[in-house]
C-alpha cells in the first residue's frame, strides 16, 4: 500500500482548475449526517484532500476495459466509477452516480455497504448523483443498481475491511489473522480489549486503494444488516417538507421561465406577436431561435405573461390517432429481428391439435410522475451548475456542456430528491432549457414543466402490437410458439415455457430512433417492453389453457420446466389458496386469473381476483397475490414496498391509462382525462418473497409490474367471459366486448 495516497493516482485527462474554499452547494442527494463539501473546481489531488483524509477505495462496476472505452475522451478518470471513504470520524461515505428516485436504493445500497464493512447502518452516508463529487455513471434505470452496482459496492466494502485489518495489525502489533471486525472496530479475537476503531486507523493520511479483483463476500449466514427489513432513510426530510427537489432550489435573483410551446409535435411557428408581453413590467422576454421564453420573479407571473403571446403555428395534417395507430405501426415496421428460436415451426404446426392465433394491442402510456420535469440552472463565468430532476445526471452534464459550449468539467449537475422517474426522467430537455436561459439572461433560471408540458414532452411507452400463433396437443402440451412483437421492444419477449418448436421475433424497438413511425417521442417506461410482452404471452397461454379445458395454473405448471418459475408460481398459488377449476368460467361477475413473467433476473407470478360490473363495465380489483423470486433479498421491507408500488401503478396501464392523441397533438393535458390509479382502486395486496439464497440479488423496482395487464385481463375473462385483446381494459372496451362476446378482434395486416 502507498501511504502517500494520491501520488499514485493516474487521472487521465483531468483538467479541472484550482479554486479553494468554494461555496457549499445545497441540494445534493445525501442521506446520513456527515456531508462532505468538496468544491467541484478542485483538482483531484485537492479533492482527495478535501475529503479530510481517510481510507478511500475506488471501484468499478463491470468490466473496466469496457468502461474505459465508454468514457474515452470525456475527461474523467477511467478506471473506477464509484468509491467509498472511511473518514477519521469513523463515518463511511459512498459516492455514486446512481440516484434515488423513490425506489429505495439510498437504503439498500447503504445496507450492503454496512454489512460487508462491518459498520452500523447509521454510520453510512450516501452521496448520489452529483457529477462533481460522484464518478461517472450511465444512469439509474433498468433495475441495475442492486444487481450490478451492488456486488461491486460489496466487494469494495470487503476490500476496505481487509485494508483496515492490515492497518490494525500494524497498529496493535497483532498478526492480521488474529484480527476480526465488528461495528466499526478491529479487535484481537483472543483478546477483545486489544482494539482500534476504523476512524483511528487512517491517522489523518489519505490511504488509497483501487479494486483489482473481487474480494470474497459474506455469505447469507454472516449478514447482519442485509436481509433485514429497514425503513427508508430519507423519510424524515420527506414527511416534514424539508426534502429539496429541483423546483425547491432558490438562488439570489433567480427567474422563473415559461416557454412557448407548439400545439402539436411537428408544428412550425408561422407568426409571433409579443408586443403585449413587452409592456408588462418585470417580465423579461427571450428569443433564441426556436426558444421563446418569458421570465419573471414568480412562476405564476411568467405563466400569465406567456398567455399574452400571440403565436400562429402550421400544424401538419394528422395522419394517425389512438384508433388507427396499431395498423400504422404494423405497416411501418422495420425488418424482423429473430430474438430466439428452437426446433422448427412448420413441424410444430403439423403436430398441433389446436391452433390459437391472436393479436394483442397495447397503448401509449405516460410516466406521469407527480413531480414534473424541473431544473434550476446557474451560470458563473464559464461554469454552470444545474439542479435537475433526472435519472441520467452524467448524460445531462455532457448535453449541457455541448449546448453552452462549455468544457464538460465546468458543468456540474446536482441531483436533488427526484419526485418519481419510471424511465421518463432519462429525458432532460427542461434542464437544457434552464441552462440556455441562464446563459442568455445572466441570471439563475428555473424551468418547471406544467402538467400539460409534462404530458406533451413525455417519452411515452410505445404503443405496440403482438401477434402470436401457437399450438398445443390434445394432452395440453404446448407444441409450437410463433411470436412477433412490433415496437414494444425485446425485453420480456422470450417465453420461458417448455416448447419444442418456437421462434420469437421483434420488429422495431421502444426508442424513437431514425424513421420512427411514432408521432411523438417514446422511451423506456417502468420495465420497458415487458408489460406488453407479458400481457400478450400470458393472455395467449390462458386462451390455450381454456382450449385444452385445463385450469390455467395447472396448464402453466404442466408446460414449465424452469425450476425458478415453477416454485414462484406454486408459491403464488399456495398463498392465494388457488383451487383448480376447468374453464369455461361461470361469468358470475367475480373471477380470478394468473400470470407470470421474468424481468431483470427476477421471477414473478401474480394471481388476482376481480369484480366486473357487467352493466357499467367497471372493474374493481379485489385482491392481488404476488410471489417474487429475486435472489437474495437485501431489504425485505423495501422489496415489498416496490412490489406494492408495481401492483398499484400497474392497475393504471391495465385499466385506464392510455394517451389520447391526434397526429402530433397530445390531447391529454391533465389527470382529468389521463386517469391514474387512486386509493379506492387498491386491492388487498399480499406478497411472498420466494427463498432463493443461492442466487445473487436481482432487480426489484420493476418486475412486479409486468404481470398486471395479463393477470387482470385473465381475471376479467374468468369473471365476465370476455377476452380483452387491447389494454387498457377500460369500462367502454369491456362493455363493447360484453355486447359482442363472440367477436374476435381483427387481425391486423398479414401474418
Amino acid at each position, binding site marked *: 500500500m502507498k501511504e502517500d495516497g494520491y501520488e499514485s493516482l493516474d487521472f487521465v485527462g483531468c483538467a479541472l482548475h484550482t479554486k479553494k474554499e468554494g461555496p457549499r452547494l445545497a441540494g445534493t442527494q445525501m442521506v446520513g449526517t456527515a456531508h462532505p463539501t468538496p468544491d467541484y473546481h478542485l483538482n483531484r489531488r485537492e479533492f482527495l484532500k478535501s475529503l479530510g483524509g481517510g481510507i478511500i477505495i475506488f471501484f468499478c462496476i463491470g468490466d473496466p476495459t469496457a468502461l474505459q472505452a465508454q468514457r474515452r475522451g470525456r475527461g474523467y478518470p477511467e478506471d473506477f466509477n464509484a468509491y467509498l471513504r472511511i473518514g477519521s470520524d469513523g463515518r463511511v461515505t459512498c459516492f455514486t452516480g446512481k440516484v434515488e428516485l423513490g425506489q429505495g436504493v439510498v437504503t439498500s445500497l447503504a445496507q450492503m455497504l454496512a454489512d460487508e464493512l462491518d459498520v452500523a447502518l447509521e454510520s453510512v452516508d450516501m452521496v448520489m448523483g452529483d457529477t462533481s463529487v460522484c464518478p461517472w455513471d450511465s444512469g439509474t434505470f433498468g433495475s441495475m443498481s442492486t444487481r450490478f452496482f451492488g456486488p461491486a459496492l460489496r466487494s469494495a466494502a470487503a476490500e476496505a475491511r481487509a485494508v483496515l485489518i492490515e492497518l490494525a495489525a500494524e497498529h496493535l502489533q497483532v498478526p492480521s489473522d488474529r484480527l476480526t471486525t465488528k461495528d466499526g472496530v478491529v479487535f484481537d479475537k483472543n483478546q477483545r480489549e486489544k482494539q482500534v476503531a476504523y476512524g483511528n486507523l487512517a491517522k489523518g493520511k489519505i490511504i488509497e486503494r483501487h479494486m483489482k479483483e473481487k474480494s470474497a463476500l459474506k455469505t447469507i449466514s454472516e449478514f447482519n444488516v442485509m436481509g433485514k427489513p429497514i425503513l427508508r432513510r430519507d423519510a424524515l426530510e420527506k414527511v416534514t417538507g424539508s426534502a429539496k427537489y429541483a423546483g425547491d432550489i432558490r438562488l439570489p435573483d433567480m427567474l422563473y421561465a415559461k416557454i412557448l410551446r407548439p400545439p402539436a409535435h411537428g408544428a412550425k411557428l408561422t407568426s409571433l406577436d409579443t408586443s403585449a408581453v413587452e409592456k408588462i413590467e418585470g417580465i423579461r422576454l427571450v428569443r433564441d431561435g426556436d426558444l421563446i421564453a418569458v421570465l419573471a420573479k414568480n412562476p*405564476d407571473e411568467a405563466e400569465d405573461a406567456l398567455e399574452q403571446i400571440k403565436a400562429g403555428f402550421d400544424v401538419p395534417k394528422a395522419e394517425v390517432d389512438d384508433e388507427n395507430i396499431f395498423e400504422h405501426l404494423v405497416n411501418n415496421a422495420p425488418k424482423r429481428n429473430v430474438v430466439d428460436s428452437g426446433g422448427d415451426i412448420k413441424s410444430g404446426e403439423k403436430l398441433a391439435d389446436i391452433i390459437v392465433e391472436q393479436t394483442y394491442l397495447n397503448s401509449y402510456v405516460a410516466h406521469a410522475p*407527480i*413531480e414534473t420535469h424541473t431544473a434550476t440552472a446557474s451560470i458563473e463565468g464559464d461554469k454552470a451548475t444545474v439542479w435537475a430532476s433526472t435519472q441520467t445526471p452524467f448524460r445531462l452534464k455532457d448535453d449541457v456542456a455541448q449546448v453552452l459550449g462549455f468544457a464538460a468539467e465546468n458543468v456540474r449537475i446536482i441531483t436533488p430528491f427526484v419526485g418519481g422517474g419510471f424511465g421518463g426522467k432519462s429525458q432532460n430537455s427542461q434542464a437544457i432549457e434552464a441552462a440556455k436561459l441562464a446563459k442568455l439572461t445572466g441570471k439563475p433560471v428555473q424551468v418547471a414543466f406544467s402538467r400539460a408540458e409534462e404530458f406533451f414532452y413525455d417519452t411515452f411507452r410505445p404503443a405496440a402490437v403482438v401477434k402470436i400463433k401457437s399450438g398445443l396437443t390434445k394432452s395440453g402440451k404446448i407444441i409450437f410458439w410463433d411470436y412477433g412483437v412490433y415496437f414494444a421492444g425485446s425485453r420480456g419477449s422470450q417465453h420461458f415455457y417448455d416448447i419444442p418448436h418456437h421462434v420469437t421475433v421483434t420488429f422495431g424497438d421502444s426508442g424513437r430512433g431514425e424513421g420512427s413511425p411514432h408521432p411523438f417521442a417514446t422511451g423506456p417506461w417502468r420495465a420497458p417492453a415487458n408489460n406488453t410482452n407479458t400481457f400478450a404471452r400470458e393472455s395467449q397461454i390462458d386462451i390455450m389453457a381454456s382450449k385444452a379445458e385445463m385450469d390455467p395454473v395447472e396448464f402453466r405448471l404442466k408446460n414449465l420446466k424452469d425450476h425458478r418459475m415453477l416454485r414462484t408460481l406454486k408459491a403464488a398459488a399456495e398463498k392465494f389458496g388457488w383451487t383448480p377449476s376447468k374453464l369455461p368460467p361461470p361469468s358470475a361477475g367475480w373471477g380470478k386469473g394468473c400470470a407470470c413473467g421474468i424481468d431483470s433476473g427476477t421471477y414473478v407470478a401474480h394471481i388476482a381476483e376481480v369484480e366486473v360490473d357487467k352493466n357499467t363495465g367497471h372493474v374493481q380489483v379485489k385482491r392481488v397475490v404476488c410471489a417474487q423470486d429475486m435472489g437474495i433479498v437485501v431489504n425485505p421491507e423495501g422489496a415489498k414496498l416496490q412490489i406494492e408500488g408495481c401492483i398499484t*401503478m400497474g392497475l393504471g396501464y391495465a385499466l385506464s391509462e392510455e394517451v389520447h392523441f391526434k397526429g402530433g397533438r397530445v390531447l391529454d393535458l391533465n*389527470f*382529468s382525462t389521463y386517469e*391514474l390509479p*387512486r*386509493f379506492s382502486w387498491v386491492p388487498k395486496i399480499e406478497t411472498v418473497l420466494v427463498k432463493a439464497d443461492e442466487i445473487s440479488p436481482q432487480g426489484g423496482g420493476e418486475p412486479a409490474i409486468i404481470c398486471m395487464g395479463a393477470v387482470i385481463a385473465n381475471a376479467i375473462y374468468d369473471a365476465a367471459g370476455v377476452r380483452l385483446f387491447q389494454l387498457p381494459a377500460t369500462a367502454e372496451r369491456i362493455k363493447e366486448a360484453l355486447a359482442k362476446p363472440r367477436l374476435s378482434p381483427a387481425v391486423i395486416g398479414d401474418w
Partner: protein
Amino acid sequence: MENVSFKLNGKAVSLTTNSQRMLLWVLRTDLGLTGTKYGCGAGLCGACTVLVDNEAVRSCRLPVKGVEGKQVLTIEGLAQNGKLHPIQQSFIKHDALQCGFCTPGMILAAYSLLLKNPHPTEQEIIQHMDHNLCRCGSYARIIQAIGAAAEEMKGAK
C-alpha cells in the same frame, strides 16, 4: 397590488401582492415554504394540499385573498417544537412514501380528516384521500399509516 394578512403556521404574515395569485405560488416563492408542491395546477392531484381554517384545500386553485384573516397550515408547520406529529411518525414507521413528492399533501389531507373524524374506518380514509394521487403506488401503506396514527392519537388523549 393589495395587502393580504393571515396566520401561517401560527405566525402572522402580511404581504403586498396581486391578491388573485394562487396561494401555492405565494407560499413557494414569496414566503419560501417549498414543502407545498405543484403537481397539476388544476386541483386534481392534491400535491399542493394545505389547511385553511382546518379544511384541506388545493392551494393551486385558491387565490391568496381567500385566506385573508384565516389560519393556514403547511407541512412545515405540522411538527411542533421539533416533535413530529403522530401522522408524520406513522408515515415513517409504515414506509408510507417512496419519492416523497406527494407526501406533504397526503399528510395534510390525512390531518384534516383526523381533525373531523378522529376514528375513521378504512373506507372513510379511502373516501377522504381518494383525490390525492401517488404515482409510486404507496396507497396501501398510507391507509395503514393513517389508521395507525388515529390509534396513536387516541392513546395520547
